[in-house]
């Protein structure tokens, strides 16, 4: 039985910019096929500037100029029906947000309305989706909700700048679960936090997922966080998914040279040899190298790598990789 809840098919999303009369195209999402399952935590990893946040915007059906979907599509499965998000009206999309698909931003200083108390943000979110209820009822609901998640109620009276970064991040997660959505997507929710706080936030996300039995799509460049939380990981490079596998396979048997670099650059206990990082810097999305975009940084690059982009090879069930070193590129299906 197909459990796919969130799917992309040959998705291309580009930024089309007009910089003083010259058109500039950034290929931020370039041919991406994903099939994200119900009740899983799917991690998307990659360096900054690889297009992962853009992919997230496309998944959230929040594509606005200058970003444009050039081809391909994104579908949600709502009540057993596959729905192409491009066919939804703005009002339908608005209703799906928070109720069906919720978004967790980075809990930065400016993530909440700086002139409103947290309880006002709660009220705005609640009133936008549940018609009935007065101001006090909305506050009661907020209080109940926070208690359930083990967060202090007194933060409701605070202004955003009075909260710590960790607390702001927790509140964004709490708000995302308010209406028990089927999908939660998180954009670097752990990035700006110190390690101890980070662990608490990861734990909160895990608890939330266990309770709601829903899907979490998590974007972060931090492989440590992925190792802790993700069931499956997609590695993104220059707008493309280059490898996808269950977490233990990604860490245990990475197949793509780029993934190998990412894994090898992680520190290990007791191992004091210097960590090797990826040589060179990520390519500009405005001016991608020919063939496989990784070839200029790849130590094993062959002639064909410079000419043609490899398709996916199915290394084993649920593990696919796009690299000429691994296979001849018979098109591995998104699984």
């Amino acid at each position, binding site marked *: 039985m197909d459990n796919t809840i969130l799917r992309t098919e040959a998705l291309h999303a580009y930024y089309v910019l007009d910089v003083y009369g010259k058109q500039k195209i950034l290929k931020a999402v370039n041919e991406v096929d994903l099939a994200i399952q119900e009740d899983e935590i799917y991690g998307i990893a990659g360096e900054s500037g690889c297009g992962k946040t853009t992919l997230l915007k496309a998944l959230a059906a929040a594509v606005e100029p*200058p970003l444009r979907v050039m081809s391909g599509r994104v579908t949600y499965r709502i009540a057993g029906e596959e729905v192409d998000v491009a066919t939804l009206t703005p009002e339908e999309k608005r209703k799906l947000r928070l109720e069906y698909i919720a978004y967790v931003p980075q809990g930065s200083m400016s993530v909440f309305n700086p002139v409103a108390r947290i309880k006002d943000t709660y009220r705005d979110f609640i009133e936008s989706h549940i018609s009935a209820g007065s101001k006090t009822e909305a506050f009661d609901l907020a209080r109940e909700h926070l208690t359930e998640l083990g967060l202090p109620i007194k933060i409701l009276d605070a202004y955003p700048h009075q909260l710590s970064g960790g607390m702001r991040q927790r509140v964004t997660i709490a708000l995302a679960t308010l209406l028990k959505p089927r999908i939660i997507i998180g954009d670097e929710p752990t990035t700006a936090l110190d390690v101890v706080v980070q662990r608490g936030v990861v734990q909160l996300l895990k608890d939330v997922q266990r309770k709601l039995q829903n899907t979490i799509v998590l974007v972060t460049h931090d492989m440590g966080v992925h190792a802790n939380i993700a069931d499956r990981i997609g590695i993104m490079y220059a707008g493309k998914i280059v490898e996808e596998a269950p977490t233990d396979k990604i860490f245990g048997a990475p197949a793509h040279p780029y993934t190998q670099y990412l894994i090898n650059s992680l520190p290990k206990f007791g191992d004091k040899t210097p960590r090797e990082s990826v040589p060179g810097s990520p390519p500009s999305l405005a001016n991608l190298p020919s063939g496989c975009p990784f070839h200029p940084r790849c130590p094993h690059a062959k002639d064909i790598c410079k000419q043609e982009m490899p398709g996916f090879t199915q290394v084993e069930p649920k593990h696919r990789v796009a690299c000429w070193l691994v296979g001849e590129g018979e098109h591995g299906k998104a699984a």
Partner: protein
Amino acid sequence: MKVFRDLLRDYRFFWGFWILVMMLVFAGLSYFSPYDPTLWGEVPRDMRPSAEHWLGTDSNGQDIFWMATFAVRNSLTIALIAGLVSRVIAVTVGMVAGYLGGKSDRVLMFVSDSLLVIPLFLMIVLLAMLIRNSMNVVSLGLLLAIFGWAWDARLIRSQILSLRERDFTKTAVLSGTGTLRLVINEYMPYSTPLIFSTLINNMAWAIGLEITLAILGLLDLSIPTLGTMLYWAINYQAVLLGRWWWVLTPITLSILLFIALYWLSVSISEYLDPRRRVQRVGAA
């Protein structure tokens, strides 16, 4: 050069730039003037525009076209003196306050805040009343410079504050770069465009004040400027007597100058802010 070509694609920069170039050429013509601007009665009075006197003549018996070339030259000189001298003050204050921080920052910002709430115009009037007869191009320029730096010092300070937080500052400080070297070599290149756009704004402000002071008769009225031309036109009731060419010449020139300077500064500061640059989105 690439920056310049990019900027010229913006209609405001394009027009602002060319109007200003034309103004400079016009001001340069004053060196070829057949008439001495300090002498009256050189030409017949109150003539309509004609082939001989392109913009007519005024009630003082001066040729308006050639007077206008002197007026633009003097007004621009006043503005340039005011702008450049106040830039020196604003940049020094802004950089010192922004870089040193602490007490010197508080003192300098207190001074500039105070200048912002004090009725500067009235202060200038008080001073100008006393030295009215020696209010020439240079002294007026300097007087305006003393009062015209406060706001721009604030802008420069906040830019330095944000530069100080950047990584390269720490790198430079840790590798032993001296404060002065750091400010001049590392910060100046970042601040130059901002300083330039504040210079343009300040020049527009100076021209406006020059005109106001002249209309009130607080300048040496024998020096032709855009303001003193208007003063004489108003003084001789040129509007009531229907001598439109006399009034319209300084007004048109000053409006062109104001628009040119303003459009240049808007265009440059928009170019400086990459967020706004990218907002000019193309629809495909």
